[in-house]
């Protein structure tokens, strides 16, 4: 990952290789949720190159720190989603027991 910032550390562009809308759009959401972010957006400079630039401008903290927080926030969110999902699946399975386990039963018919 590349990080460009001229003088003022509050404004920076981060360039991620081998990433696309999947991460950038989710990160933009996470960054926008932070009241310390003045502006954030992302662009994909060329559609055939696996690269995405994320622009972050903040009120007073370093953009790098804010981006890190945003990532942490997103990760926390994912962990909560995963935990909730696993619990719901288990509950569903105990309520609707179906004998065969899909992972064991390799036949389609």
């Amino acid at each position, binding site marked *: *990952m590349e990080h460009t910032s001229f003088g003022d550390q509050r404004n920076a562009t981060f360039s991620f290789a081998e990433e696309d809308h*999947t991460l950038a759009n989710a990160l933009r959401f996470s960054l926008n949720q932070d009241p310390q972010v003045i502006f954030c957006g992302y662009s994909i400079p060329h559609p055939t190159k696996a690269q995405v630039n994320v622009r972050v401008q903040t009120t007073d903290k370093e953009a790098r720190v804010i981006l890190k927080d945003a990532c942490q926030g997103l990760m926390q969110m994912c962990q*909560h989603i995963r935990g909730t999902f696993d619990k719901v699946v288990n509950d569903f399975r105990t309520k609707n027991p179906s004998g065969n386990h899909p992972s064991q039963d390799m036949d389609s018919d």
Partner: protein
Amino acid sequence: MSDSEPEAMAEADGVPSTKLPPHLELRRTRVLCKVDAPDNTDTIQYSGAYASLGHENSLRFADFCKDFRVDITRISDDDMELDMVGVDPSIANAFRRILLAELPTMAIEKVLIANNTSVVQDEVLAHRLGLIPIKVDPRLFDYLSENDTPNEKNTIVFKLHVRCEERGQRLTVKSNELMWLPKGSEFLKTSESLTSTSKPETYTSFTCSQDSMPEFAGNPIRVYPDIIISKLGFGQEIELEAHAVKGVGKTHAKWSPVATCWYRMLPEVELMEEIEGEKADVLKQKCPAKVFEIEDLADGRKRATVARPRACTLCRECIRDGEDWEKRISLRRVKNHFIFTIESTGALPPEVLFTEAVKILEDKCERVISDLS
């Protein structure tokens, strides 16, 4: 100065001081489906979007945990439907994109054709073989890099040898004819001089047989059974070896673990006024998705009710007949409620696919964090 500081801190922390007025709350949380086009489709992500109204728009983690909900409507061996409530579209879409393009599976990548006299050309045959889903957990395997030699940890070998022996018959070759070779390739490399070394070399170098591994003992690797590969006429023969490796859907769709995966937002149908009598019958008739029902009131009148809003496809048939109908019914979609459907191809059950997709997004975040530290 010091007196005003706690207040400023509280504001920065994002304490919601006021609620949004109902018309703005509606636009914030619903897509409005008008007769010509859906309106108000964007999500307002910026935390300060309603700052002038004293409303904090950011989502705090505690609130997220409180409001987030998953409901499962159906799980089978190869597909599931779930409701994910309380997430932003960007997160839901990230999961969908990861499921389609970034979750690894095993798929046939190299086909060594010894003999093919069928009408299906070698390259077409190889392509068809590539698309056959292999029922094996990809987490048990490694990626095969360019300089790696194929071994038992990164390659699965299948053999296909069929010949139509009966005169005047057509033999249909189905995917269950693909035999797993747990000991690796059986084809010998011909380029080396056979006399020089003791052991003849094959196209793979397995150190042990795959069926001796605990994961596969008594659980042979199979492919999806009844896919037609080719049809053979009398005397025609196919003899080949297919090597499957690990990959992801963005390289080629054959590695995608899902047949497809999609979401739709929860439809919401509101009757803005009482619809009674003949009009109620007309409304019930109009809807092809059978969203409306008629309820009999005590005094013998009939009234339309919204019985199955979830079935609404937003075809807008009910609001098409003039402005009157547009005023009577409001079609909306809930912006943070996703009805997610996952159709697995059989490598992993759908609920495992979803958890793995969430893990991949976590990994991506973790990579960025470690890059920044």
